[in-house]
């Protein structure tokens, strides 16, 4: 940005500042996103609103432009890096209020044989933005790791990620094991990754396929809210 274009974020009203944070996030400007986040909080904004309106709102625009071929992976990663800046400020505040606002725990991991985690990390960040407590198992996870995490954390959803055509079938192994152990009635399962599609998810018996990070978070949130509504109406 040239000096003439430079301006003080403090001078913007709330609506313009939210838009500016979204623009800065889109441009991958981590320092500016962090500063904007701090300003909104100093004006008395609720951390959840800052997260939802400014950060998640910005990442949704990024997600749409990625899907439409306007943005590419490097730019999306820069945007994610900028969002992380804001998340760093918000996370401790959100954690304090987690009991009241959390949608529950979401266990996520890349499956056995696969070391790719870019997509998984983006989904994790969007899930956190949606209000989940994310338990990240990292990469190269055999089915035992998912089972152990279920025992330990009692998640509402388990998500599996894979980038390779050779590793995606392992999701079927995890899904089958969950079925065998009767875990599917209480735990929703999701899968995602570049080579996957809905047909594959159907074939391995995983009910939800998230085509991108923003959509995955939306689907997870919808699932939990629908489940809550059903329970309330019983």
């Amino acid at each position, binding site marked *: 940005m040239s000096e003439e274009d430079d301006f003080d974020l403090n001078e913007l009203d709330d609506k313009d500042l939210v838009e500016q944070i979204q623009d800065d996030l889109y441009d*991958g400007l981590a320092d500016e996103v962090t500063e904007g986040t701090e300003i909104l909080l100093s004006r008395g904004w609720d951390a959840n609103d800052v997260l939802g309106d400014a950060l998640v709102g910005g990442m949704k625009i990024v997600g749409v432009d990625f899907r439409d071929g306007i943005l*590419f*992976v*490097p*730019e999306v*990663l*820069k945007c994610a*890096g900028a969002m992380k800046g804001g998340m760093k400020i918000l996370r401790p505040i959100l954690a304090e209020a987690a009991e009241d606002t959390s949608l529950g725990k979401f266990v996520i991991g890349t499956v056995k*044989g*696969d*070391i*790719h*985690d*870019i997509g998984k990390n983006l989904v994790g960040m969007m899930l956190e933005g949606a209000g989940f407590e994310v338990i990240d198992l990292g*990469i*190269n996870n055999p089915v035992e790791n998912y089972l152990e995490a279920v025992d330990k954390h009692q998640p509402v959803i388990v998500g599996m990620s894979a*980038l*390779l*055509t*050779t590793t*995606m079938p392992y999701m079927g192994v995890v899904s089958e094991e969950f079925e065998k152990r009767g875990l599917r009635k209480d735990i929703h399962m999701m899968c995602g990754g*570049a*080579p*996957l*599609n809905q047909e*594959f998810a159907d074939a391995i018996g995983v009910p939800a396929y998230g085509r991108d990070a923003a959509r995955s978070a939306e689907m997870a949130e919808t699932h939990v809210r629908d489940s809550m509504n059903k329970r309330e109406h019983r």
Partner: protein
Amino acid sequence: MNTDKKRLVLGCGALVYDLLRLIEQNPGLSDKVKLQCLPASWHNKPQLIAPGVDDYLAKHGNLYEDVYIAYADCGTGGALDRVIEKYQAKRIGGAHCYEFFAGSEAFHEMAEQELGTFYLTDYLVKNFKRLMIKGMGLDRYPELFDVYFANYKKLVYLAQTENEQWQKEAAQYAKDWGFKYEYKLVGTGYLDCVFDDIEIMPLASEEN
């Protein structure tokens, strides 16, 4: 049937030199085969491969007697196979070009030894700066290196030809990225199977 029709080999641009060399080595092929390559940059964007192949075959497929696809699955998760089925074409087996270059068994052994292995071929070494550095945005955002490669530990150069310059360059890339390095001269592996049926089966025009 149009008896003048050739057979189309539609392949990845990253295989163009290897495919051309194989055709040159077998003079009988050049009369029978039309080679068409799609952008090598799709190596980094596998979601474009299946629609790209579909689009090309929808426009030009009917000009050829048969269609052979010089791709592996290449990260399309079966999407390329669905296109191939639509046009009754066939492709090279395997998940990646690395697999058909190295051979399935050797490739799986390498992956098992070190999951975090980054593979290069002649084409990828020659075009490293364009496809890897620029293509992945590392020229603009070098800070993304860890985001991409934090889980990688080793670089294996699966060479198709012996080229000292490329060997030096590949070793240097491994050093620059802090990876262990291994060089394997594997040749074109079973890429040539794309031409197998073409050599065996005469063109319809030859039968008449």
